[in-house]
């Protein structure tokens, strides 16, 4: 059976398509398998191995930004804060608009007690997303670290209006009032915490001692 020229071309194109689809499907499966393995290792507390599995993906390719953010997170879990910051910064270079990387980088910065730098990244998020919950919490942690009690109290009050059911914000509000020496307002805030989390250790202790 002879094959006509158009048929030959069609057959060649088919072969190429099949070959390419095989290449890509193999690549996709391998990549998915790597991510899956990385998540499993992380779940088992093997953070270094979880990072090693996806490290190559952070060098180039479509998944580079996500791989960098994940490596930054896994570095943070290993208390390799400088590596974590470096990965987040590289992710920000790739995508300067990334809110995820900005939220992420505050974790190692706060762990290193770099309050001002963490506050700066949190505020950058709030400039584009004014009521981003995580950014507010990170900023409040930084304000507490800098012992800016007036600032913290004002900040926590504003966030509390937006997240009235949230106990964490009330903890910062209560601490700020306590450090400002305003026991009545601190107690009121701690009472509100106890309504949300009965038996809250810090609130219970403060109410007992004041």
């Amino acid at each position, binding site marked *: 059976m002879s094959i006509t020229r158009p048929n030959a071309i069609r057959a060649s194109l088919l072969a190429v398509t099949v070959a390419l689809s095989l290449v890509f499907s193999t690549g996709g499966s391998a990549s998915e398998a790597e991510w899956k393995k990385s998540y499993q290792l992380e779940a088992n507390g093997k953070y270094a191995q979880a990072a090693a599995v996806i490290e190559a993906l952070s060098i180039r390719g479509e998944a580079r930004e996500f791989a960098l953010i994940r490596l930054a997170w896994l570095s943070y879990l290993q208390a390799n804060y400088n590596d974590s910051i470096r990965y987040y910064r590289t992710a920000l270079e790739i995508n300067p608009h990334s809110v995820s990387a900005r939220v992420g980088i505050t974790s190692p910065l706060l762990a290193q007690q770099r309050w001002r730098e963490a506050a700066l990244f949190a505020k*950058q998020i709030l400039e584009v997303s004014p009521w981003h919950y995580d950014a507010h919490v990170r900023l409040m942690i930084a304000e507490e670290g800098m012992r800016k009690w007036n600032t913290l109290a*004002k*900040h926590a009050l504003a966030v509390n209006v937006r997240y009235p059911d949230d106990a964490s914000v009330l903890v910062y509000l209560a601490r700020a009032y306590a450090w400002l020496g305003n026991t009545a307002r601190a107690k009121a805030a701690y009472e509100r915490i106890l309504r949300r989390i009965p038996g809250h250790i810090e609130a219970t202790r403060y109410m007992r001692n004041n």
Partner: protein
Amino acid sequence: MAERFISSALLALGLGVTAWMGYPDTVEASEDWRADDLWTINGSVSGVIGDYDDSNTRGSFYGSGLKMSFDYLDRGGFTLGYNYTHVDFKDGQGRDLDQAAYYASGRLQARPDGARGTVIFRMDTHLVDNDDITGTSDGAYAVAPIIGFYNYDKSLYLDLGLTRSFYMNDFRLMQLTPTVGFGFNEGSDWLQLRGFLIDSNNRSRSQGEEFTAALDIKYSHWFAPGNLLKIDQVSLGGLVGDRIHAVDPDAASMTNLSDVQTGSASISGSWRLGDVTNLTVLGGGDFYENVPAKDSYRSTYFFLNLSREW
């Protein structure tokens, strides 16, 4: 002298009352999230007034100072300082002395992951300019590199400073200041010990001492909020041993007085006036000895410092 003391006391009283009054009962919610604060600037003004008790030659002194610190995020910064001091000598014991002291310091911070804390590389420089008619204390300068470390828990501090001091006519001193500090009681107490090991290249310029050793001890306590005096911190300080021409990294000062310091005791209190202002009041006494002149005396002083952050 009395007028100066009264004005200083009134200033302290006024600021103390401000601290006592505390903060407004209501706090307005803030919604200002501008990310524009790369630099933190801290400025302070200070004043000191004191007497030389039992001295054969010296009468009293007063001075004032200005210091500005600039910090880029949490990475490093620099400080510039100026101090003016006037010393009154007793009648017939010499001309009064006016002195300007300049201070410049730079610092870089690093946080190696393995260290679990902050390493500080610091370089201090001092320059003293005065109208000392003998010329022995004029034009002195010092260079002091310091490496320090404090852990994230704020329970341990270590530093080591090496200071080279230079005076006119080839008089030089080398000072080593090993320091250790401990935090305890969940960070509300702090004990710091700093050694001053000072070596002189010319005994005739350092009261016959070729080497002096002293230990500076400082205990600080931070109070819980809502205490009666609204005080933030109280410190007790003391010095045992002998030291001469010491350069103090905490006080950022260079002692160009040629007498041997044989001890000191001090107490200080600090008040936070809001988030950005701090008031420190310090009183104390330093003990000195001038061996050739057989003059042992005490310097008692009252010091006030007001600082603000921008």
